[in-house]
């Protein structure tokens, strides 16, 4: 009898050991969409541009590439990148975090030029068909412009070296090349550069695309892209003034610790204050011990004497990440010498950017509705990343530079983890619109920003 029970015992043990917990409740599915040929159309964000360059690993961490791998699990096909072979990029400018010594001899950590080997020759033409038509620097109108990929137009500045690299024929438009892929699913994220060029030049360089032009170009582009009945998703433009590029350098970095210097500066600006007072204008420049706002050039002041188009910056105005910090520390920029216009976004310029962004975004949203497409609201996502930010997989994302995890070292383009967040945001919108079940990625699978 004992034997029998002991044997029963052993049998139960054996059976129990063969059943293990498992969870497998998710079945990828395309819903009413067809992901078999996915084409991504856009600018540097779509291309996978990061750290001030389009380079090999950055390109593969681009959100479009991440998204394509998830779509592939839901019936999608291959997604071919115009592969960049160099880790340094195609054009110079790649940044890494590293120590640099400032004019005062202080060593600090910040973006410094990268040294990751030779550049990929931009004239090394890509001859194979590609699915990622993200062209760094492209505005809406550029995607419709024949010759934007023609090397003969480069000297006149009418062509884009990135599109030159992968345009299938010299005078094809980006739109035509996208349609030549016979896409079944298209993502279109464009319009950022229509305001960004203005913003990153402190309102001094490229103009904001007029709203009427944007509406015409965007409408034409979207209608033609989706004319063949393909499905897809449109994405709007994040309010660029939230990007780390504009929010990292404080407005008041002029720290005065010496009363003699304070007095000298106040004396130097006394004639300015007197002149402004005599003109009945509210502008004054005052200095005191501690942190002081910088003096900036503001061409919108419209003073009769151009030298008087200067004033102290307001706390709600933005200083660009590209400002030469050494000039502030050692060459009296911001105190004795006003900060040149191209490093500052004034309240008026910020309003121009915000207004244009809002109008462009209305056009994008309306187009998505008219064409029955999915819509990804990145403007709202980026707003949520201000302040305490958003958390995914235990990683906190904010708009802060480097430690905010969202932006790469150029302060505008996304980090690998930022790209993964964006890819998941696209997936949410696609799943909601098309009743699809595209699996999301683990944000924690993507590398953090490299610290030395």
């Amino acid at each position: 009898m004992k034997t029998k029970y002991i044997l029963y015992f052993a049998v139960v043990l054996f059976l129990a050991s063969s059943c293990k917990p498992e969870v497998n409740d998710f079945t990828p599915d395309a819903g009413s969409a067809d992901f078999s040929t996915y084409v991504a159309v856009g600018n540097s964000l779509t291309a996978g541009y990061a750290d001030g360059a389009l380079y090999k690993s950055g390109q593969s961490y681009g959100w479009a590439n991440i998204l394509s791998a998830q779509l592939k699990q839901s019936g999608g096909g291959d997604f071919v990148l115009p592969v960049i072979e160099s880790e340094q990029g195609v054009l110079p400018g790649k940044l890494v975090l590293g120590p640099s010594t400032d004019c005062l001899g202080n060593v600090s950590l910040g973006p410094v030029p990268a040294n990751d080997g030779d550049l990929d020759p931009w004239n090394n033409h890509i001859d194979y068909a590609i699915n990622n038509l993200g062209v760094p620097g492209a505005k809406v109108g550029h995607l419709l412009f024949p010759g934007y990929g023609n090397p003969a137009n480069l000297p006149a500045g009418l062509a884009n070296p990135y599109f030159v690299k992968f345009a299938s024929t010299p005078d094809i438009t980006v739109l035509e090349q996208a349609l030549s892929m016979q896409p079944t699913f298209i993502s279109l994220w464009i319009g950022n550069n229509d305001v960004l060029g203005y913003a990153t030049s402190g309102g001094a360089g490229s103009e904001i695309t007029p709203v009427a032009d944007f509406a015409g170009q965007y409408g034409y582009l979207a209608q033609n892209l989706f004319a063949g009945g393909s499905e897809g998703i449109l994405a709007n433009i994040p309010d660029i003034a939230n990007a780390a590029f504009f929010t990292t350098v404080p407005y008041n970095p002029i720290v005065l610790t010496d009363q003699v210097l304070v007095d000298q500066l106040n004396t130097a600006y006394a004639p300015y204050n007197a002149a402004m007072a005599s003109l009945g204008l509210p502008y004054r420049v005052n200095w005191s011990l501690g942190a002081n706002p910088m003096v900036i050039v503001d061409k919108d002041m419209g003073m009769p004497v151009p030298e008087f188009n200067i004033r102290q910056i307001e706390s709600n105005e933005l200083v660009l990440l590209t400002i030469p910090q050494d000039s502030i520390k050692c060459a009296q920029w911001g105190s004795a010498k006003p900060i040149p216009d191209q490093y500052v976004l004034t309240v008026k310029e910020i309003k121009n950017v915000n207004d244009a962004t809002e109008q462009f975004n209305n056009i994008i949203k309306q187009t998505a509705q008219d064409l029955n497409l999915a819509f990804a609201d990145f403007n709202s996502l980026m707003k949520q990343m201000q302040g305490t930010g958003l958390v995914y997989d235990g990683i906190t994302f904010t708009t802060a530079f480097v430690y905010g995890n969202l932006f790469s070292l150029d302060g505008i383009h996304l980090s690998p983890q930022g790209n993964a967040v964006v890819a998941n945001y696209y997936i949410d919108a696609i799943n909601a619109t098309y009743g699809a079940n595209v699996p999301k990625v683990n944000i924690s699978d993507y590398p953090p920003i490299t610290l030395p």
Partner: protein
Amino acid sequence: MRKITLLLLSFAFMSMTVFAGGYQVRLQGNKQNGFGLIGTPLSNGSSSIFYNPGSLAFMDGKLDFELGGSAILSTAAFQKSGSNYQAVTENPVGTPFYFYIAGKIGKVVALGLGVYTPYGNSSKWESEWAGKYLIQDIALSAIFIQPTISFNFGEKFGIGGGFIYTIGGVEINKALNYSGGAGVNLQGSSSAMGYNLGLFFKPAENWSIGLNYRSRIDMKIEGGDATFTIPKSLQGTIPTENKFDAELPLPANLDLGVAIQATDKLLIAIEFDWIFWGAYDSLSFSFEEAGELLDSQNPRKYSDTFIPRIGIQYAFSEKFEIRGGAYYDTSPADDRYFTPETVTLNTLAYTLGLTWNPTTYLGIDLSFLQTFGIKAEKNYQPDNFGGTYQTGAIIPGLGLSFKF
């Protein structure tokens, strides 16, 4: 004896597979293990030191030893929300053990000493898994040492109590979101005190009631070692070698059980356990250096749980008994603060056991439990990390008892 060897061999062939109910481990006697983990209304010799000091003085014989242990082969499986990503733990085998000795002085008083391990958790996820910024692995253990005194008043009423001295240790590894495989290792140990009180009442020969209360014990780690593996550029801000304080409550238990000797051979018992998990509100770490950056307060928001148990035992003879049991253990964790460091789901379990007494002095107890964590979707909101979890465990155990 040859058959027992065979049985042990079948243990060795088993694959790894979870345990449940927070980080409590009630496997403190192999007779009770097989009997739905019921011990409060019984007098099973020296293991009453843990289950109910009130019944200790009802032991047969003058001197009683018990020793034994179990092997917890547990697995937790996970699938991330909105994703087909799956992960499975590679938990090391949990090995709760116990040792009890008790002696009777006259008819009224019994004295005893128990060493047992009622709390523990060893969870190990793959080091690069999706939740690596929450937890990679955790090993928590606590050894309780309990000298006990018990009184038997006229074979009807028993009361007993023990002083508990606890030695505990914890080790945690988690990844940090910095480049170069950054992470932190936390290791600390602690000792604390508590008590265990029991009442036992035997209104008639064929039935008994037990009530037991084990106090909450707070394991305070002071000056634990924190080792940060981080990029060089951060080492000026965050020291690589640091000290930390933390506190983990081991909750109080209130157990009430009734046992009925239905026939000469058949014993039936039910028990209800109330576990005061509400004590575990948050897990906080404070660091000696760079505290403003590193200190964290992590909500856990556990709630008290209630476990109903049933056990049935059949004695074929003086020499041979078989038993079985079942229980339902609810999860103390809050759906919104459910962390993969302790995957505790609502759990159903059955238990099996047998005792073979080759002589009147020696008893050999075998037990086997299987637990089924009920699949559920959970999220840890502060880290926005969630998914569907399922758990399972098989737990064989072997114990020896000596009676003189």
